[in-house]
């Protein structure tokens, strides 16, 4: 019965990045929005061709770094001024220049942690299984092949017309992507 269920989408394979890029632009002009491209290396301009989404990562990293710096300085201030004030070497309780190295290190630590965790979270990783993996040729996406997948949740998606559209782009092949 599986072939009666709506597929995840149609996928076209290309053997060159420039072919994928022009195909993606054409698909966008045709009106498709819910689509993604899969490539073995980052391609300049491909994201823009798919319809750019806001990249929140830099902001998250900035917030992470600020939290690390505030937390780092706050911890030292709390320890030395509030919780256990102790005169050491005749220095003031809040001898802030001495607190800068640890403040800096914790800012970098938190920002770097946020860069990695934020990147994974925004990318929905880990996702051990994804419908695109059901296409046998897709294992080449990490070697030399370039794929464009138009998803069935796109309002313009039509099982027949979308396939014909993709076949018109002169791909190496067009494959149905099984649903989740």
């Amino acid at each position, binding site marked *: 019965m599986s072939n009666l269920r709506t597929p995840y989408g149609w996928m076209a394979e290309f053997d060159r*990045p420039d072919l994928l890029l022009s195909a993606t632009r054409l698909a966008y002009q045709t009106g498709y929005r819910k689509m*993604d*491209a*899969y*490539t*073995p*290396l*980052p391609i300049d301009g*491909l*994201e823009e061709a*798919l319809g750019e989404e806001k*990249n929140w*990562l*830099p902001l998250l*990293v900035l917030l992470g*770094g600020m939290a690390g710096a505030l937390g780092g300085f706050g*911890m*030292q201030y709390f*320890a*030395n001024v509030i*919780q*256990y004030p102790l005169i*050491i*070497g005749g*220095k003031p309780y809040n*001898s802030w220049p*001495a*607190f800068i*190295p*640890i403040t*800096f*290190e*914790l800012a*970098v*630590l938190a*920002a*770097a*942690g946020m*860069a*990695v965790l*934020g*990147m*994974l979270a*925004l*990318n929905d*990783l*880990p*996702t*051990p*299984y*994804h419908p*695109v*993996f059901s296409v046998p040729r*897709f*294992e*080449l*996406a*990490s*070697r*030399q092949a370039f794929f464009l997948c138009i998803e069935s949740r796109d309002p313009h998606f039509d099982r027949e017309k979308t396939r014909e559209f993709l076949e018109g782009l002169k791909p190496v092949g067009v494959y149905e992507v099984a649903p989740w």
Partner: protein
Amino acid sequence: MTQRPLIDPNFSYATVTDKISSIVLTRKISANWLLGLAAAFGLLMVMLLSLGVLFAKGVGVWGLNNPVGWGFDITNFVWWIGIGHAGTLISAILLLLHQKWRTSINRFAEAMTLFAVACAGIFPAVHLGRPWKFYWLFPYPNTMGLWPQFRSPLLWDVFAVSTYATVSLLFWFVGLIPDLATLRDRAEGKLPQLIYGILAMGWRGSARHWRRYETASLLLAGLATPLVVSVHTIVSWDFAVSLIPGWHTTIFPPYFVAGAVYSGFAMVLTLTIPLRQFYGLKEYITERHLDNMAKVMLATGLLVAYGYLMEAFMAWYNGSTYENYMLLNRLTGPYAPAYWLLLVCNIGIPQLLWRSSIRANPLALFVIAIIINIGMWLERFVIIVTSLHRDFLPSSWGMFYPTRWDIGLFIGSLGLFLSLLFLFIRFLPIISIFETRELLAEEQERLHE
């Protein structure tokens, strides 16, 4: 300007992928690899034995005494952490500077960083009189109601080194994700597929993922760059903030950072020259790479030479009896051979690198790199031990002689480093596959123009 290409433009995405991944996936375990791992593992056992004796008997098994409270332990710590810095420099700073030649060595150099930091981290932990209480270094809520001393460079060091280790690990792992996906897709057996699959976390090369991925890489590089400078600066403060003649000098932070990069590049060359030979990677790690690394060594070596000069000049010029004596003692005292040898290793012999024929000769580079490794170890030894052993009062002068456990732990840490490297070479791609594909794309584009 026509430059030798960094990669043969006749390669394809498929061939570079297959070539690099085959080292991990299809190459049989070779006798040489097994022999190398066995030797490294043997040295690792020497480390465990030295640590066992140390834990059972205490730091008295080392040659430490009053006044020499720091000997091989901190020398090894500074040496290892310095070696790590080249990896971060290659992966972060050269990325920001768009130095394409870093592509084929950055993965390996990052791994080297990670393993060197692992070796470095052992020494400060075990040189504590009571190493089982090492966690007292961290600020954690405790029933004693105590905090660590936040105004001390030694505590800054704890934060710097642990941040550095964490960020290096993250950077390295993020760089591996797309390649782990390649290995997942290319592995034959069920078990490798499963392991690489779990590690790749379902990476599928989506264009939207790539964009965030590249942003994350760039931001990590931007964060790692000041971090690496801060780490060795803080290490140098361990010394410079004290009042010991020979340590109390403002040249230390820049001079330590330059020395770290210097020794790190020497270690990268020491490791990559045999590696490209044995694994047939000369098309990837080309002579141009070796030439560039040799030039970085030459430049940082000159910075280090300037550091030595200023150190000596200031010791003489400031007119302090103790500083004057420190200089005299370094030049003519009981440890003078170590000082002269380090000058030969770090300043004398590396001047051969001015000649392009030497830079084009892998064997000569390999030998010079090893000499620099030795020289940089001696530098730290001289800074630490000769400064300590002549205290302000002649009545408290002493000598440091390493015991077999000092030497055992040092040799053993090389075993840990090499064991980790051998395992890394076997199980993970030593050259970044996806970045090599990118490099190839750029090289082909350049050819079309």
